[in-house]
């Protein structure tokens, strides 16, 4: 019981802030030190309780409306009258051209243009209460639901045992085609997994990207394109991506 391991190291471990090698070191230590191991397990229990939904204060329903009410009053009012005059004076076309140019330049370094679109779609699914068309935690209900609605059979698996329970599925539209979306949860974070047939049978490793605070993972495997979008941290979202097996 005379363990001298720095407690901060255990906390860094709990927070996923240690590098790969130190994480392995701590894991090796935990396997042989009961005191540190029970410290870590004890905190994981507390964390579990902190993340339970009854401790999460969701915004009251009317708050969103109040916030929406803020924007027009501040922005469309007399604060920016020049902006509107400029738009109506024909600046609109110039503005649109500039926006297109900027969008083009910004999107060029990426190998696919689907990422920002996928994030917009993710946000819309959360805003419009249209996250799920078929609500089920059963993969044998969700998978057949897609039959006849799309021209491919997306891989559907429940990952509840791994901590990512399936919540349901829906259809969405992305990159000029209908795609399947599988909705998973990790604690309070919804994960949208977009799936559609790839143009070829190539394999692309998982590519990480952050857009507007959302993490986007893209990969291609077994003839399918995958995009996982969530506000979940990249570490856990990466674990999730590795679990998906078509």
């Amino acid at each position, binding site marked *: 019981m005379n363990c001298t391991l720095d407690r901060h190291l255990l906390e860094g471990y709990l927070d996923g802030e240690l590098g790969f090698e130190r994480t392995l070191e701590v894991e090796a230590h935990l396997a042989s030190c009961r005191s540190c191991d029970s410290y870590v397990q004890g905190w994981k229990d507390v964390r579990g309780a902190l993340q339970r939904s009854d401790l999460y204060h*969701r915004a009251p329903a009317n708050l969103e409306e109040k916030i929406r009410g803020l924007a027009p009053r501040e922005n469309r009012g007399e604060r920016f009258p020049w902006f509107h005059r400029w738009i109506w004076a024909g600046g609109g076309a110039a503005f649109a051209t500039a926006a297109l140019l900027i969008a083009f330049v910004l999107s060029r370094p990426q190998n696919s243009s689907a990422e920002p679109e996928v994030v917009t779609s993710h946000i819309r699914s959360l805003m419009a209460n249209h996250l799920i068309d078929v609500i089920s935690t059963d993969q044998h209900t969700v998978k057949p639901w897609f039959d006849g609605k799309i021209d491919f059979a997306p891989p559907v698996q429940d990952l509840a045992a791994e901590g990512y329970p399936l919540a349901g599925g829906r259809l969405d539209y992305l990159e000029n085609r209908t795609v399947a979306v599988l909705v998973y949860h990790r604690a309070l974070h919804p994960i949208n997994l977009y799936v559609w047939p790839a143009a070829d049978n190539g394999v692309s490793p998982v590519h990480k990207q952050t857009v507007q*605070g959302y993490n986007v993972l893209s990969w291609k495997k077994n003839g399918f394109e995958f995009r996982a979008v969530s506000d979940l941290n990249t570490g856990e979202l990466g674990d999730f991506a590795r679990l998906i097996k078509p």
Partner: protein
Amino acid sequence: MPEQFEQVVLPHLDAAYNLARWLVRSPADAEDVVQEACLRALRFFDGFRGGDSRAWLLKIVRNTCYSWVKKNRPTEFTEFDETVHSSEVPEKDAEAKLVLHANSECVRKALEALPVRFREVLVLREVEELSYKEISDVTGVPMGTVMSSLSRARQRLREELRVAAGKGV
């Protein structure tokens, strides 16, 4: 611009409200604070250069909460200063022996009993799952301080839970 603003802010409204609710500890005040924060966010929206919109909003909500707490409950900060400057660190072994009664109700009460800065760092790390770097960005506190506050916050939460367990709550 208003549509863009809504796209940036509204998806993070729950996170904003949850943080405010834990910091000011009252539903009505939390709602006022979030509205005030969104007004500020709208005012500063020109300065938002893309990137992590959640951290950006949480930073504004956090600062608005702090202004509110300073004005309405100034004593909350004195309590924290005493705690943070005390230097004793209890034995890890002693803590390990503790059986934590981590049911939601106990944890809720224990978290509510903590000083505001400890509540803040625990909500940002454990509930919103921000990294040390992100917490540092949101709170404007250096990374090292984030780590030590988090460590002390956990210690205090454990102590509260131990007291609750002792009372048989």
